[in-house]
């Protein structure tokens, strides 16, 4: 069974806050949910499916269903880190197609900025994690684990720091138009490569922001979507793929998007050439480069050339990306950027992106996510959407 055409994204909301010391995590989830439900033109009692990941406080989604007073008949806590929310859209479409729910709510929220989170500190582990003893002592955090991917890519393909910097430059060109973006200043390649090195070869400006906030999505069946007043955004194809160290046959030159992308394109019955806008998970600049290659927007090893000279800047390049400013400039709530990737793609397909970055007649968009640690084990997800 294919989910192509079986579900629509009817509501999308990005919480405007980037710093929320005065709010709880549960409150941020619920505020994001309110926003998405209102955006769709639905009410809380219409929700009969709930999707959340590891950022939801308490036991899976149980705490949040109870907090929000939802009465659901389908619940899903699929956890692949920051890409979870793309997979939730896919799983919501599957549940809707199978008749298990009609209106699915997906939420993400967190306060890593208020809580002092940093990409240079390993996340806390427990002893049952199978890899913990072999990795925890070595101080693998996000910055250095992604840094090793960039180092290997440079070694194998001659990718340069300046090429990676173009990804940040493009994001900053878009963020200047987003009043909610954490970083709105347009930066240059020189600014990026002259910013301090955090973990070789990644500079501070190769790294995403740390923000509080959240987001939410409503996925629903075609009849309900068509009864609402919002532009129709159809789910065309999805793919998901975990990738790890492969039993010690470590290969840092590609991501799970190599598998998730083709699955999504096959289901959507489109090719990379057809895509007009992409939301690409940008925890670091290298994350974007590898996904673009693995999704087939350019050949493996050619990502550096592809992103250079403003090719990702809307209105200028061949593949506009992350027109909200992405995780690099706008928002990375809960240290997880997946839901904001879907939200900006929905804005583009609805024609509701900022006019300065809106892709003309945007009918086909792709969102791609990488959750976990690209250099250790991660979950890739791809989602193709169409404006109907």
């Amino acid at each position: 069974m294919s989910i192509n055409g079986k579900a629509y994204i009817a509501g999308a909301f990005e919480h405007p806050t980037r710093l929320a010391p005065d709010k709880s995590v549960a409150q941020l989830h619920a505020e994001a949910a309110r926003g998405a439900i209102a955006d769709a033109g639905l009410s809380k009692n219409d929700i009969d499916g709930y999707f959340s990941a590891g950022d939801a406080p308490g036991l899976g989604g149980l705490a949040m269903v109870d907090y929000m007073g939802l009465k659901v008949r389908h619940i899903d806590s699929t956890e692949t880190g920051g890409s979870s929310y793309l997979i939730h859209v896919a799983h919501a479409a599957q549940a809707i197609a199978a008749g298990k729910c009609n209106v699915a709510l997906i939420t993400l929220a967190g306060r890593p900025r208020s809580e002092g989170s940093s990409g240079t500190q390993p996340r806390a582990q427990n002893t049952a994690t199978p890899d913990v003893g072999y990795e925890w002592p070595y101080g693998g955090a996000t910055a250095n684990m992604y840094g090793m991917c960039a180092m290997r890519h440079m070694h194998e393909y001659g990718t340069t720091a300046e090429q990676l910097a173009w990804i940040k430059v493009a994001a900053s060109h878009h963020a200047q138009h987003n009043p909610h973006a954490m970083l709105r200043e347009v930066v240059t390649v020189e600014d990026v490569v002259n910013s301090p090195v955090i973990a070789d070869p990644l500079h501070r400006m190769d790294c995403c922001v740390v923000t509080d906030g959240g987001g939410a999505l409503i996925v629903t069946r075609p009849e309900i979507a068509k009864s609402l007043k919002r532009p129709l955004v159809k789910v065309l194809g999805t793919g998901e793929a975990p990738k790890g160290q492969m039993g010690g046959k470590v290969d840092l030159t590609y991501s799970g998007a190599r598998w998730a992308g083709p699955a999504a394109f096959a289901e959507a019955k489109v090719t990379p050439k057809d895509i007009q806008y992409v939301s690409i998970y940008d925890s670091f600049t290298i994350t974007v480069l590898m996904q673009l290659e693995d999704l087939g927007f350019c050949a493996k090893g050619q990502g550096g050339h592809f992103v250079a000279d403003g090719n990702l800047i809307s209105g200028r390049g061949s593949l506009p990306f992350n027109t909200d400013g992405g995780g690099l400039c706008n928002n990375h709530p809960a240290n997880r950027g997946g839901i904001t990737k879907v939200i900006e793609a929905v804005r583009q397909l609805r024609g509701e992106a900022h006019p300065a970055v809106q892709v003309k007649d945007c009918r086909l968009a792709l969102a791609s996510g990488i959750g976990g640690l690209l250099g250790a084990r991660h979950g890739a997800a791809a989602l193709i959407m169409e404006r109907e």
Partner: protein
Amino acid sequence: MSTVRKMPAPLPNPENQPYWDAAKEGKLLVKRCKDCGEFHFYPRAICPFCFSDQTEWVESKGTGSIYSYSVMRRGVPVPFAIAYVTLDEGITMLTNMADGTDLDGLSIGQKVKVAFKAAEDGSAVPVFTPA
């Protein structure tokens, strides 16, 4: 201020205790499957390639080369290098470069050999030095 990174305890469990016991004796253990013959890392009771439960501990030669590395230069008390080292047995493991290694002199493909560093709980943790 210390110029040496404190190494957190490896948090051993029953499955990997032999690895840590051997490390205290200066040995790096890896696992090989008696059924399919493949080495794997990190070590598991069940082979991740053929799913056999006939895996055995084998002492690695402890030599290899750097597959990739990254020096964390900011946001930590002491700069240090994380690395993936491909052992001569053909498997790649996460590690650190040993204290005192020239962090600006590292390169992919560089030959390295195992050494051991004391963790905060007294465990010996495999690290690597230029060969």
